[in-house]
């Protein structure tokens, strides 16, 4: 096994909130199958709070565990609180990640943020477009 913490293993073996939300208020997709991992986050927003978060993830154990914990951390948070789920917060919450898997925590936080961006844009807010991760294989 890769050198994963117990918490990573738990979230990988029993991922929370897997799925799609048919009538999502925001959708964020990050990563690229060419690079080996891709995540799609779906959020429902109620009263400025993330009332539901779901995800689908293609990728390694860390990518799945990161998606799971990000979804768990986000549910119930306000938009502003959810914006504070940064890659390092994610990695810490998981009890650390192997060095070569850090980028997975980036992806997770980014996908959530993109979903929030999407929601805010639909609300009519001006949201700066983010740079999508480049596919360095092509």
């Amino acid at each position, binding site marked *: *096994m*890769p050198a994963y913490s117990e918490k990573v293993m738990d979230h*990988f073996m029993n991922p929370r909130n*897997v799925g799609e939300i048919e009538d999502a208020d925001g959708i964020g997709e990050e990563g690229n199958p060419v*690079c*080996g991992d891709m995540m799609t986050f779906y959020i429902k927003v109620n009263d400025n709070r993330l009332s539901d978060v779901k995800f*689908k993830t*293609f*990728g*390694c154990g860390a990518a799945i565990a990161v998606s799971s914990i990000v979804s768990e951390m986000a549910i119930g948070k306000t938009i502003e609180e959810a914006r504070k789920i940064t890659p390092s917060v994610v990695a810490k919450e998981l009890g650390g990640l192997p060095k070569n898997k850090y980028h997975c925590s980036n992806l997770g936080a980014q996908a959530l943020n993109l979903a929030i961006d999407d929601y805010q844009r639909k609300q009519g807010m001006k949201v700066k477009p983010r740079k999508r991760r480049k596919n360095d294989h092509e």
Partner: protein
Amino acid sequence: MRKVYLDNAATTPLLPEVFEAMVPYLKDMYGNPQSLHSWGDDAREAVEEARGKVAALLGADSDEIIFTGSGTESNNFAVKGLAMAQQSKGKHIVASAIEHFSVLHSIRSLEKQGFELTEVPVDKHGLVDPEEVARSIRDDTVLVSIMTANTEVGTIQPIGDISRVVKKSGAIFHTDAVAAVGTIPVDVGELGVDALSLAGNQFYGPKGVGALWIKKGVRIIPFLEGGVQEGGRRAGTENVPAIVGLGRAAELAGAEMKSRIEHLSSIRDKLIEGLPSRIEHSFLTGHPTQRLPGNASFCIEFIEGESMLMLLGHQGIAAASGSACTSRALKASHVLLAMGIPHEVAHGSLLFSLGVTNSMEDIEYVLEILPPIVDRLRSMSPLYAKYSKERNRGN
């Protein structure tokens, strides 16, 4: 929990017979073969006996065998030592795109010294076309290195045909036979090569020992320099127990080759037939028939290798993958990519490498365990979701 080891490409277990052969040299017979006393004599005789056994497996002469510390060392030694010995004649090297990194990176470091590499492509089955080799050879080509068989996809190359092409050019022909020797019949005369690498831990021998066979008369520059061991061609105190183990493993491989191949092919074929029929959107990689008897390598679409390995491991099954996430360098297998498999599909690579300790029950266990794992990961996969939606729309 049932434990099923299907990662023999990474390393095979040591056979009990090999272990027993090694024990005396890990205990009382600890002498250095270079020493002039009875401990030294015992060690030297053991090393020479092992050399004879390795030579016999290859149809070679004993004094053509140089013991090394690994397959990697054999390849570094061969590529660098043969190229350097020939450099006055030219500085061009030909190798296939699917060579092991111990060959490819050795050539890369030669490039810093002015050598040039032409990579020969492979077809979708991982086969090298001898005609492509012929086309790649130039007047200044001094070395051609094409592996006998590929560990990751099992494809066996037509080395005999390639050697006929290489011979016309006068270049030296090395083959990395690390995945082949001890597993399929390898006769250096029939292959027609000039040098050949092998490693103990690929055929139930010990780790930490390999060998380079090098045809009498072919010049090579030493790689490990120092003492006069191995006829001055590879310095360092001989790893006597490991060499003895390699010899014993070679002897067993020769004696049991036929029955091993029969057994392995039959359980491998069960997996090769059973897996794609139970799992939609999965396919065999490598050549359908020209393949190592223990190799069953697949791509499972829409999901990624590491997560499959973790869930398999959770149920006691050990396998491997060529996905980017399973590699330290986070790059998908260069072998799969060279065969034209797209990145996103290569990430779903799954390699079961079977060994003599495996049984038909092991295969049945895999065929029972794997489909639900694939279903589970696909149910999480946004790629699979997209594919399903498009399919439904199409209907």
